[in-house]
Every structure is written in C-alpha cells, then in structure tokens.
C-alpha cells in the first residue's frame, strides 16, 4: 500500500510521451533496499539503451541484408504499436516500470532500427551524426544541470510543458489532415521555415531532458521508492528517442537541400 500511496500525488514533466510522476512520501516509508538512487537510475538507463540498440541493430541488419524497405515494415509497425502500448502501461501503472520499461526499450529498438536504416539508405552517414548529436546533447545538458548553469523552475516546467503540448498537437493535426490529402506544409518542408521549426522542436526536446534530470535528482534525494529508478530511466529514454528522431529529421532536411 505504501507504494501506491507514494504515487497519489504526481507531478508532470514536459515529456512528450507521458506525464512524469513524482513521489509524495519520504524514505521513511520504505526499507533502505527499496530506495531509489542516482546510480541505479543511470545504470538502468544504460541497460535500456543497450536493449534498444540490440533490437535496432537487428532491424538494421534485416534491412541491409535484404535491401528492401518493405522487409522491415513489419518490425517498424510492431515496434511502434508495441512500444506505444508498453509506454502507456508504464505511464498509467508506474509500479510496473521495472518490467514494462525494458520491454518498451526492446520494442522501440525495432522501430528506430527500421527508421534509421531507411534514412541511412537515402542519406549515407546521417545516422551516426544523429546518434552522436543526441548523446552530445545529453552529456552537455547533464553537465549544465549538475553544475547549476541551467536551473529548472516551475515557470521553466510550465513553458516546456506548454511548448511540448503545442508540438504534439501540431503533429496530431498534421496526421489527421494527411487522411484528407492535406497537411501542415512547413513541418515537413526543407525550406527555411521547415528548418527553423525542426530547430525549435529539437531545442524543446532537449530541454525536456533537463526536466527529467531534475525529477530523477529530486526523487533520489528524497528517497523515492525503488521502482521509480526504472520509471526515471524510462522517462529519459522516451525523451532521448524523441530527440534522436527530431535530430534525424532536421539533418535529413539539411541533406535534402544539397
């Protein structure tokens, strides 16, 4: 019951895929072995990244061994739909995160591997650049957060949440409009407006990482329950995947101009 009480009051991050949940009770309600730690969260994030990489590499190899984009479409759809279900389970039942978060990582790998292979076949060398820039952003913002250069406040949280919601709404609208043969042009265009839009989205996705760091830092400092380690790692992974896809899109727009 203590675990459930711990989730009674939740905060929200600006995370695109879910509402980050915080902690309401202190470590006194949990035994020492059940308390969340920073190193535990970082280790779990590393593990989930490895799982994601493994399945991504599998799909990537399938694409390049057959040379046919349709050969990975099944993996792509399976990964996207399965990943969405695993993410929703994690969001609505955070206590299941130690199981559902690694499943999410594995499934997302299938989707990302397929998408990455398709982009790589169109623009050789783009994937390693996108991965490099994603991890560089992660490391830079982590250092900026740890040293106190970036100080997330309630207003910062509100701003990122509003911006993220706006972007998601725009994507949803564009998706719905595509069924009627229309769309929001500048989202996908490689013109100046399209590139500025992608830059803004990349910046918002990157700033979501700061919210994730703050959530993890405060949760571990206040002795949140152990399962929030998996939840925090999941939160970081969702943001990282979003950031990676947005960087990939931005780079592809730039490549397509040449």
């Amino acid at each position: 019951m203590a675990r459930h009480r711990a989730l009674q009051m939740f905060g929200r991050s600006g995370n695109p895929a879910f509402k980050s949940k915080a902690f309401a009770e202190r470590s006194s309600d949990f035994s020492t072995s059940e308390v969340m730690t920073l190193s535990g969260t970082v280790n779990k994030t590393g593990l989930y990244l490895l799982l994601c990489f493994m399945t991504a590499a599998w799909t990537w190899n399938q694409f390049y061994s057959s040379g046919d984009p349709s050969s990975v479409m099944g993996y792509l759809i399976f990964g996207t739909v399965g990943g969405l279900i695993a993410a929703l389970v994690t969001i609505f039942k955070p206590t299941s995160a130690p199981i559902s978060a690694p499943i999410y990582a594995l499934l997302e790998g299938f989707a990302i591997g397929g998408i990455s292979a398709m982009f790589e076949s169109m623009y050789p060398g783009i994937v390693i650049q996108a991965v490099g820039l994603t991890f560089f952003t992660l490391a830079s913002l982590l250092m900026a957060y740890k040293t106190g250069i970036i100080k997330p406040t309630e207003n910062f949280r509100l701003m990122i949440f509003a911006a993220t919601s706006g972007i998601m709404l725009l994507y949803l609208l564009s998706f719905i409009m595509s069924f009627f043969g229309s769309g929001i042009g500048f989202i996908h265009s490689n013109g100046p407006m399209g590139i500025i839009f992608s830059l803004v989205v990349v910046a918002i996705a990157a700033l979501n990482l700061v919210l994730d760091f703050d959530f993890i830092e405060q949760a571990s400092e206040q002795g949140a329950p152990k399962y929030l380690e998996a939840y925090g790692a999941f939160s970081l992974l969702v943001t990282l995947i979003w950031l990676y896809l947005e960087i990939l899109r931005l780079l592809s727009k730039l490549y397509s101009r040449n």
Partner: protein
Amino acid sequence: MDLNTIFFGLMIVGSLGIFLYFGKFRASSKQRDRDDKIDWTQSLWTRLKSRNKKN
C-alpha cells in the same frame, strides 16, 4: 572507416562515458539549495489552479 564515423563515433563514446560517470554524482549545491525548485509532488494542473486563484 571514414572521418565522419570516427568523429561522431568518438562523440558517442565520450558523451555516453560522461553520462554514465557524472550522472551518478549529485548535482552541485547551487542546483540543490534553491528556493525556486520544481515541486514534483504537485501536479502542473494543481499548480496552475493555485496560481489562477492568487491572480
């Protein structure tokens, strides 16, 4: 292996190393001892409602 792969490959290894190493350390006191920290125990919705009431 071309220069692109070497440069961005090193960037990946270095950045992951930084994350896995420094991520385990607590943030500086400048970050932790602030009055305007985010209160994660309060949802954004509750926060907005209380702010609107004040105004």
